[in-house]
């Protein structure tokens, strides 16, 4: 475990709110008393160094030979094994030997003075709806149990080409349909901040894995908030790129016009570096953009080099409708504090109204369900996946799908099929598309007057496992903050900005920053400065401290 002390930021393991010192002290001290943490002390938190890029520090340690890739791999594998029984982030973890062999090969190349890629030795977890040729890819669905794709998704291929080591496939709501990861056909993932709570979803496994440092970064997918909401729940950075920025080739489609592969990291820089690796045009995805991908690295300057007002002149719009009724007061105050922080950094913060905001949710559920009803037609039991034998074709289809799909998936297929049916198309699908255009335009207008828009990433912090399982409408309502961004195809960055006082160590709250299309660079620059200057809080969950202990 010596490794970790060199790589990990100083372990300021919980929140520390300067505004509520007494409350915090109570919470944190009770937490610390139950877990003896030799390296942690309360004093760390007030003087804590902001989160640093794990990817850059790994690169530095490896190339300077302070550490070997094998040592590094072993430390991650050890923590993964240690935490996984509590978290269940992964659906598939390859043999240690395979991972260690990759690490050994990397060491050999570094020792031999060979060039290694920018992700060399970086442990990357991949959401299980993203195809990997050498591991099963199930999308969390019974219908694809044991399915192994014959190809790597383009994003995975690029990660591998740049030296990343795929550490496993993470859990998700079946086909990405859900907001808690309880919708997985195989297991429920826990939130590293409180194992009795959901990690969010649908990329809950990828978010939890990064939060618990089971990997360095991870890939998720975001159709209506499936990267951003779990990032918020798990206290990590989640980046949903512009639609078309990252190839969808190899991402098992949920709603093709909304789907985006996104990145999780424990720092803005890591999410940005991962995006740099996977972004760009792909000839296998006709909807991938040909726009150049700038190098984001120059944005990730050290805190010390920032002036006193590093974001002077930046116009920040706080979306009024997102801090309204129905949003937890703790979340609202965390976001208002974040707004104050922006002002401290020199920004002008104004509330902006997006009147069409509330239209997003129904439009999203119609469009996403419609597209999913079509995208999931291929799971018919004929060519691959689970086949339930029958004497007759229709029964083969019916039984294979009845037994292969979970209830949430079936519900969305039914809704989508209905919405696309003759006679209903105009009232539902077409109307939803019109709403989509309105939303896109209103974002465009708001982004003409503001450089970035901010909002909570979710109306609440992580809730208890089972709390919304039988109330789909309540769960759908939780997507209100994020779905509009997918409808508009815009990039958004979620980073932890504060806590609500709940759970054993407080629960993180995520701030969503929305930017103009293909302007991820600006989001990353602003997000990085916000993160590096937010000295009040650290977002390392207790389970990491437990595993270190």
């Amino acid at each position, binding site marked *: 475990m010596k490794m970790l002390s060199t790589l990990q930021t100083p372990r300021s393991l919980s929140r520390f709110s300067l505004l509520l010192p007494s409350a915090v002290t109570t919470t944190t001290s009770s937490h610390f008393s139950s877990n003896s943490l030799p390296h942690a002390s309360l004093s760390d938190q007030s003087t804590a160094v902001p989160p640093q890029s794990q990817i850059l520090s790994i690169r530095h340690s490896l190339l300077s030979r302070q550490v070997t890739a094998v040592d590094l791999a072993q430390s991650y594998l050890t923590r993964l094994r240690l935490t996984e029984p509590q978290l269940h982030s992964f659906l598939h973890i390859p043999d240690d030997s395979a991972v260690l062999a990759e690490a050994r090969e990397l060491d050999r190349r570094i020792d031999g003075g060979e060039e290694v890629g920018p992700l060399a030795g970086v442990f990357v977890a991949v959401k299980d709806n*993203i*195809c990997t040729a050498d591991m099963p*890819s199930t*999308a969390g669905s019974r219908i*694809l149990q044991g*399915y192994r*794709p*014959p*190809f790597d*998704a383009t994003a995975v291929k690029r990660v591998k080409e740049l030296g990343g080591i795929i550490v496993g496939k993470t859990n998700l709501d079946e086909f990405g349909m859900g907001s808690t990861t309880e919708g997985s056909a195989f297991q429920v993932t826990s939130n590293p901040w409180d194992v009795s709570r959901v990690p969010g979803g649908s990329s809950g496994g990828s978010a939890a894995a990064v939060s618990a440092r089971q990997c360095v970064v991870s890939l998720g997918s975001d159709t209506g908030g499936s990267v951003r909401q779990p990032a918020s729940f798990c206290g990590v950075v989640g980046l949903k790129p512009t639609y078309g920025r990252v190839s*969808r*080739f*190899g*991402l*098992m*489609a949920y*709603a*093709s*016009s909304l789907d985006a592969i996104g990145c999780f990291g424990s720092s803005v820089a890591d999410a940005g570096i991962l995006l740099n690796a996977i972004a760009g045009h792909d*000839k*296998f*995805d*006709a*909807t991938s953009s040909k726009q150049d991908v700038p190098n984001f690295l120059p944005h990730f300057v050290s805190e010390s080099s920032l002036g006193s007002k590093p974001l002077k002149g930046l116009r920040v719009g706080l979306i009024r409708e997102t801090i309204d009724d129905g949003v937890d007061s703790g979340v609202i105050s965390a976001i208002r504090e974040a707004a104050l922080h922006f002002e401290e950094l020199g920004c002008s913060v104004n509330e902006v109204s997006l009147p069409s905001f509330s239209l997003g949710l129904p439009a999203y559920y119609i469009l996403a369900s*419609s*597209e999913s*009803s*079509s995208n*999931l*037609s*291929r*799971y*018919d*039991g*004929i*060519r*691959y996946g689970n*086949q339930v*034998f029958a*004497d*007759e*074709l229709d029964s*083969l*289809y019916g039984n294979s799908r009845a037994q292969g799909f979970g209830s949430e998936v079936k519900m969305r297929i039914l809704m989508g*099929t209905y919405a*696309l*049916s*003759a006679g209903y*198309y105009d009232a539902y*699908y077409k109307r939803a598309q019109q709403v989509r255009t309105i939303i896109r335009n209103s974002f465009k207008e708001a982004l003409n007057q503001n450089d970035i828009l901010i909002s909570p990433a979710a109306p609440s912090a992580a809730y208890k496992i089972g709390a919304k399982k039988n109330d789909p409408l309540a769960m759908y309502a939780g997507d209100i903050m994020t779905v509009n961004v997918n409808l508009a195809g815009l990039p958004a960055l979620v980073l932890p900005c504060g806590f609500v006082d709940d759970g054993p160590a407080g629960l993180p709250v995520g701030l969503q920053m929305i930017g103009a299309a293909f302007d991820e660079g600006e989001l990353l620059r602003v997000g990085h400065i916000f993160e590096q200057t937010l000295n009040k809080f650290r977002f390392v969950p207790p389970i990491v401290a437990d595993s270190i202990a």
Partner: protein
Amino acid sequence: MASTIFRTFKVHLFPLYPPSLLKITNGVLFFTTTQQSQTQQHHQNPQKQTKKVSASASATSTQSKKLDKIPKDYEPIIGIETHVQLSTLTKAFCSCPYNYGSHPNTTICPICMGLPGALPVLNSKVIDFAVKLGLALNCRLAFNSKFDRKQYFYPDLPKGYQISQFDVPIASGGYLDVDIPVEFGGGHKRFGITRVHMEEDAGKLMHTEIGNYSQVDLNRAGVPLLEIVSEPDMRNGIEAAEYAAELQRLVRYLGVSNGNMQEGSLRCDVNVSVRPIGQSKFGTKVEVKNLNSFASMGRAIDFEISRQVQLYSQGQDDQIVQETRLWDEGTQRTITMRKKEGLADYRYFPEPDLPAVIISQEYVDNIQNSLPELPEIKRRRYEKMGLSMQDVLFLTNDKNVAEFFDATVAKGADAKLVANWIMSDIAAFMKNEKLSINEIKLAPEELSQLIASIKGGIISGKIGKEILFELLSKGGTVKGLIEEKDLVQIVDPLEIQKFVDKVIAENPKQLEQYRGGKTKLQGYFAGQVMKLSKGKANPGLLNKILLEKLNSKS
């Protein structure tokens, strides 16, 4: 990879496609001028033109008989949906090749197999071809169109939807001009084209003969198609078959498809209804499938018309229901395949994996300018050259034949003579040797030379034919062959007179008979002289001199 993923699935009842009906029957064509194999065989030489007409007409007598049976008080309405498989090098949305007859599941990839995570990327050639055909069919083009998903479940449809075009087809509102062959009454017809749209083909189901399961071959899945929907403008089987034949000609001229019906590269589904004359409302339409040749198409339609008229005239028109019927070549009947209960809901919606199809005027202009001379324009031009419609139809049927004709005429040869040569000896040779016009050794300039040599009296027509076969099979030049074989016609009267004298001297008996009044023997003498001259004597001179000699009393 395929072998690990594919598997057979057992299906007891496959009500949609009885195996026996899926076998490809090689329909032989008898009644139209539109198929090469048929047209070639009827042209032995230019002098026997009439033979072709009678051959065709006799073959169609059954057709006309059937037509005659249709009471005059009913009007048949026929519309045709044609699927044309495009001859692009790769499939519509992936880089797999498609070769008809390949071993099952050997030209497939994750994309055309519809594996999870695979995405379609449009082969731009598909748009090129669609625009070409759209222009050739005089259509309006959609400068901003899109793809849609047509959704239904079937084992040959790997994604559970077909990528097609729904409400904004790439081309619409055009027409196709057809010249009905003389033997079917002739005349020029214009049939409306409702729309042309792009889509992908499905795979094929292979039904085992004994087993009760089926297997899927996805080689064909994802192959680009153009669907051409006609207006309901045809009134009988001949018109329908000629429309389809013209469409075949067109796609071959354009090079967008091989148009081969037997391989399924050109598939026609026809909608047939009848209504009493004077009624404005259409009758219930019946779809007829499994038409593997123009001949079966014509017969199937005429059968279907008779069937419906009969039901009408017996007051049983309520038994004409919306259904799909299959043409059964064996019994020469249409039989019910499936009834359509209400309209199928394909739940079309815009394909989100593909961007909109946006084309510019400049792009369209470039394609317009690159179009070859189309059959209709060619026919009008040949007509103006003074060729008969029969010649015109023959020559324009095959683009390569037309080009050969044009090239020969361009060298100065008389159009009618060129047509005669091509339609007789050259066509016969190609048929016997099973060669296309591009494969014969004869070059157009040599044919022109040959015609000029005969016309100029350098060689006789008979020798011309001999040379032609040399040229066809071995190549070479007319001049070279004439010199090499010393075939120049003898036009020196003195030399011919020597032959004549010799023949007369050697045949005293025949001479006596001739002079005794049996003047028919002139032919005999002429033959002998020609033989003696090794066929080189100028026939005109020969006859003139021979007559003088035979009739002189010396």
